[in-house]
């Protein structure tokens, strides 16, 4: 069993990072209050001793994984000591990036190196790894997170954290049962400007909230890309592009690239022969698999999962959900609408223009051009919680005069979602987007998708997480896994 010792001082008198995290986890179940840690121990002044760095294994090194790796290797608080990918070419690239990023640490003898893995279970089996960052296709998010929690690792997982509501619930229970610190990769939630906008709404800045709006779209925007053209016979975008839910395409098999463990890539999903559409989306494209219901969550993966927990934060339903999803076929609303317990309505629109044109919810002059958030409308006015574009906008003027005390510009670099997770690993507090929040954000996407798939409105019990008296819809809360995978 590998053990790291703090080389900078007498072992007997020193609490190492591993000791600290272990003890804190145990104490967290006894004490409800967060522990106060000196800033130097948290690495705030950049003086983290090598033995006190959080040791991390990253699972997945695709395009998103490259970004995570860069973030991790440029942080003095942490050290990546394991990298895993079922695609050897990506793994080799990642290992080269690590060697370059840690050249100084290697030269001064404070870095012992990183091991490359094909199988994530070997990463989880290491006792000297504190935490894992999971950056894989969606269908692996819950199983890997659950296995990691059971192996005693803290977890940062890309969003959406599940592809069914049931596996998300099982993830929450596994994380809590094992006292792990889990961060859902919804980075904008940590952005200070977004948080202030949400707090403004949540504390009554808009008066009683009447409605909120966020984006949802059909498959067309994704499967219309050029890389899909050679597969038009199987995809039939003329028809399938209109689907608002992912689909079970039977793409033709292709030769598996050398060095790719396709069997492990498919993992718990129903078997599909290799096809490059699942696997490769050239830069700057990401999430190539997301259109396929076995591997991804479609619009939830693309943008809805970025917005859902921000809106739940603003509305105060972070660990809950709607009580009804109203299908547009009911003619109650022009677009799919989620209704919450206190009467708030969340309308899913295809573009921000529909907030004006279909609902007349904001003035024609309103500037709505951001992403990864939404528009919230209350008795006193409206406010956006979006990143990018024009930042936080709202009205009327008197309301914005109140809000003007706050910042508007959402400079994307200001967020430090990873930093929030590192701090919580040390303090054993809950991160900004912990497992319960991540689960409910993913669930909102799944509820939306199921409502479209079933073509009718669905009642939802957010406490018990079932569709009351709807046996057919309840069947879609979960999905059998390919043998021999289990969670």
């Amino acid at each position: 069993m590998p053990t790291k010792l703090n080389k900078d001082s007498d072992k007997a008198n020193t609490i190492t990072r591993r000791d600290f995290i272990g003890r804190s986890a145990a104490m967290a179940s006894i004490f409800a209050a967060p522990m106060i840690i000196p800033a130097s121990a948290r690495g705030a002044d950049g003086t983290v001793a090598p033995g006190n760095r959080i040791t991390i294994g990253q699972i997945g090194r695709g395009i998103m994984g490259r970004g995570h790796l860069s973030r991790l290797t440029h942080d003095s608080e942490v050290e990546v000591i394991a990298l895993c990918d079922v695609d050897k070419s990506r793994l080799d690239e990642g290992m080269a990036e690590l060697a370059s990023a840690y050249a100084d640490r290697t030269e001064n003898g404070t870095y012992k190196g990183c091991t490359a893995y094909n199988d994530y279970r070997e990463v989880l089996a290491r006792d000297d790894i504190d935490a894992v960052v999971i950056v894989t296709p969606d269908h692996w998010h819950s199983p890997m997170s659950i296995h990691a929690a059971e192996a005693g690792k803290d977890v940062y997982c890309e969003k959406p954290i599940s592809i069914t509501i049931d596996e998300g619930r099982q993830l929450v229970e596994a994380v809590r049962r094992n006292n792990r610190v889990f961060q859902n990769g919804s980075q904008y939630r940590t952005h200070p400007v977004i948080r202030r906008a949400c707090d403004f709404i949540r504390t009554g800045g808009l008066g009683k909230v009447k409605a909120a709006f966020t984006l949802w779209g059909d498959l067309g925007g994704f499967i219309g890309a050029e890389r899909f053209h050679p597969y038009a016979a199987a995809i039939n975008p003329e028809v399938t592009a209109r689907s608002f839910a992912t689909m079970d395409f039977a793409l033709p098999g292709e030769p598996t690239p050398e060095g790719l463990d396709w069997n492990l890539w498919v993992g718990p999903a129903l078997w599909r022969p290799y096809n490059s559409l699942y696997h490769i989306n050239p830069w700057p494209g990401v999430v190539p698999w997301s259109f396929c219901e076995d591997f991804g969550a479609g619009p939830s993966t693309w943008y809805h999962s970025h917005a859902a927990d921000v809106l739940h934060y603003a509305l105060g339903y972070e660990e809950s959900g709607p009580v009804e999803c109203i299908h547009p076929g009911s003619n109650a609303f022009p677009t799919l609408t989620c209704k919450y317990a206190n009467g708030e309505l969340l309308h899913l629109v295809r573009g921000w223009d529909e907030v004006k044109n279909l609902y007349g919810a904001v003035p024609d002059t309103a500037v709505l051009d951001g992403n990864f958030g939404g528009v919230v409308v209350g008795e006193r006015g409206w406010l956006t919680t979006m990143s990018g574009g024009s930042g936080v906008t709202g009205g009327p003027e008197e309301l914005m005069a109140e809000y003007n005390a706050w910042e508007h510009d959402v400079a994307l670099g200001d967020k430090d979602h990873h930093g929030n997770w590192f701090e919580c690993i040390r303090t054993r507090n809950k991160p900004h987007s912990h497992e319960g929040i991540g689960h409910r954000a993913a669930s909102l996407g799944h509820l939306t998708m199921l409502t479209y798939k079933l073509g009718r409105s669905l009642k939802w019990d957010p406490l018990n997480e079932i569709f009351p008296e709807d046996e057919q819809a309840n069947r879609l809360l979960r999905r059998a896994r390919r043998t021999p995978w289990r969670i």
Partner: protein
Amino acid sequence: METLIAILRVYDWGGDRGSLMAIDASIVAAYGNAEKLAEIEQALLEVLQSEAPIPAKEYICRQLALIGTDRCVPVLAAMLPDAELSDQARLALEAIPTTLADEALRAALDKVEGDQRAGIVNSLDERKKRLVTSTEHLDANEIK
């Protein structure tokens, strides 16, 4: 429906998924109409018992996960020992909330070995988990 079923019979890897969307729509439209759903289930079962390609049978199992009744359980149970179709059969059987589906999975344990047996055990375990009360509300403040 006959035309759609004819298309389904030859649905293979690389086949046109769009051509099956009319079946999807028929199932959605039949919600609450037991007679119509039974008619669709029967038509799907006939293809499932034919020499149709694996993607066709997989598509059928996905639909049976949604609308399957005890009528389809024996057919699905017979697929459990088949290495190429066992997972698809479990996709449907695991979702069908009847005692007969449980019994079919348990009975298959005596007949199936290896990975397929592990899959059946996993399906039985998942069905059992649904009976366990969620612990979320007890554990919600455990890490604070």
